[in-house]
């Protein structure tokens, strides 16, 4: 794979976003229309009560050459959950799938815990207005912790291949106590589930489908998959479990794997065809990749330094 970077595409600070959000445009994901591309992302505002961030979904519409922003969302795209629900404290990320004239959104809902910072699960919402707003199908999740996936199910990415829905997602294996004085750190891996209807999912239960590259505490996140010719390609991001926020040697970068059967994935980071820039917005971190096709081109959206605080960028596939 070889990608040509086209630079920072969207800077949230330059726009008036709903909910008073000013910084962060994380985990960009697309819904492609005939004459424009809608890119959803998670942005943040400070919770006045707790002083902690809440993540909200917003979007920006681009022309199909990605030369300008046509519009940004004015309404809240999807409500956060009610008291005590899995998505009460944020939705990040959101994955959009158009299938048989329906528009599904698979959300990663966040709720705060006491002994650890957070728990997550995957929710499902449906849009009846071409993706302007989404309504949840229930107050609970469609995919959550189970016997051997004890925590932190989320980052779902769904495609319809070979007659069924496929979901790639992450699950937590454990929380580890980092260095003294630091909060507990999580370890999560990429997994796969299937479904006939996109609602009821069958997990493979604790099967890590992407091998570790760093060590057994490697954190793998945000899988995104595309089929090109007969081969499936997956990008994701990965990092060390601790000291990853400000240390570029331990922070997020992009990983790559391929599969010919959707069962066995061959990890092949050396052929990802994209790496940190020498300087600038993606020189210290690359994370939250999203691959999509627009007309006859394949693009990669991703976040750079500081987990996407400045926004997201785009690259175009030049050789597959």
């Amino acid at each position, binding site marked *: 794979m070889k990608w040509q970077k086209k630079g920072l595409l969207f800077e949230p600070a330059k726009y008036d976003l709903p909910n008073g959000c000013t910084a962060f445009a994380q985990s960009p994901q697309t819904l492609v229309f005939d004459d424009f591309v809608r890119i959803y992302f998670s942005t943040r505002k400070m919770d006045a009560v*707790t002083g902690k961030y809440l993540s909200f979904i917003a979007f920006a519409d681009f022309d199909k050459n990605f030369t300008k922003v046509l519009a940004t969302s004015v309404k809240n795209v999807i409500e956060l*959950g*009610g*008291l*005590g*629900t*899995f998505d*009460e*404290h944020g939705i990040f990320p959101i994955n959009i799938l158009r299938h048989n004239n329906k528009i599904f959104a698979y959300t990663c809902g966040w*709720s*705060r*815990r*006491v*002994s*650890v910072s957070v*728990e997550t*699960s995957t929710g*499902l919402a449906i849009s009846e207005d071409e993706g302007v707003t989404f309504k949840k*199908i*229930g*107050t*609970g*999740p*469609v995919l*959550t*912790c*189970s*016997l*051997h*996936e*004890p*925590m932190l199910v989320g980052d779902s990415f769904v495609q319809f291949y070979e007659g069924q829905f496929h979901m790639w997602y992450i699950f*937590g294996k*454990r*929380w*580890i*106590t980092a260095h003294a004085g630091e909060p*507990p750190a*999580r370890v999560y891996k990429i997994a796969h589930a299937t479904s006939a209807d996109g*609602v009821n999912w069958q997990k493979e239960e*604790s099967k890590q489908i992407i091998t570790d590259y760093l060590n057994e505490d490697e954190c793998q996140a945000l899988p995104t998959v595309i089929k090109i010719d007969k081969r499936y390609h997956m990008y994701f991001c990965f990092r060390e479990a601790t000291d990853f926020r400000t240390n570029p040697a331990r922070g997020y970068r992009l990983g790559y794997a391929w599969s010919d059967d959707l069962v066995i994935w061959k990890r092949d980071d050396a052929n990802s065809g994209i790496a940190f820039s020498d300087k600038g917005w993606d020189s210290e971190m690359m994370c939250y990749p999203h691959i999509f096709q627009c007309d006859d081109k394949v693009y990669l959206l991703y976040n750079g330094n500081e987990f996407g605080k400045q926004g997201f960028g785009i690259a175009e596939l030049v050789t597959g």
Partner: protein
Amino acid sequence: MGRVFNPLEIKNRSWLKEFAQAPCVLIFDDFVRVYFSCRPPADEKGQYVSYSAYVDLNRNNLFEILRLSETPVLQLGKLGTFDEFGTYPISVIRHNNEVLAYYAGWTRCESVPFNVAIGFGISKNDGQTFDKIGDGPVLSYSIDEPFILSGPKIRRFGNKWYLFYIAGKKWILDNGKPEPVYTIRMAESDDGLNWVKQNKDLITYKVEENEAQASPDVFFYQGKYHMFFCYRHSANYRGKEKGYRIGYACSDDLKNWIRDDSKAGIEVSEDGWDAEMISYPHVFELDNEMYMFYLGNQVGKHGFGLAKLENYQP
């Protein structure tokens, strides 16, 4: 018949200070093992953890305590898991040469005090201790059961496994304090591990729309399924007026239930340990009698007691 076990009388168990909640029996040749859930003293922030343990009673005299478990029967979960702060209540069943336990695991949340999901353990020592087979829950949240999956009661009828439990519907604010509303639900399984939820409230509400229902205790008797359970108002339920009472329903198929609390046949006493509320019924047959264990005031803070069904015909 009176109180059987008062946890406040127990010494030398650091993990058992007060509460003996949600009794559930496992019957042996010469004794009856009663599982219950208890708590050590609250921590400096006033928060409890909960454990499950057992007391063995003389089969011929259920008011005679033979022994108390040396340790809790289940360990609390690891950091960040669903049962890190409590394993309560527990329901056990014999299967082949093992005893299986389904229990509610508690975690602590920021905006509401807790969340609960149902875990699973196996005992190879006649129910003295149980080992978990995974760090996560065996029955977890879903689209219409967003939180608080608790109060499991495991049953086997024919070749099928049934799990009766409660699921949270919403959290309401009572003078700014979050209080959960939950209803009685059921799931079926062929193996006891993979569950298919019925996704339906089994019992209609009576005292108010936000009635909370718990402890769905089901047994088969004279050609029908019977359920005793408890219910309460959504707010101010810690006193007599709106506190827990025991309800009753029956069913021909385990799925469709007719509630008729007038047939429960048990009410709060005039005075004493069960004068304010009665809750968490568990019904069992023993030596040609039908008994019910249940909790009294303050949801079992002072232990559980026993009642006997009149005119029981085995």
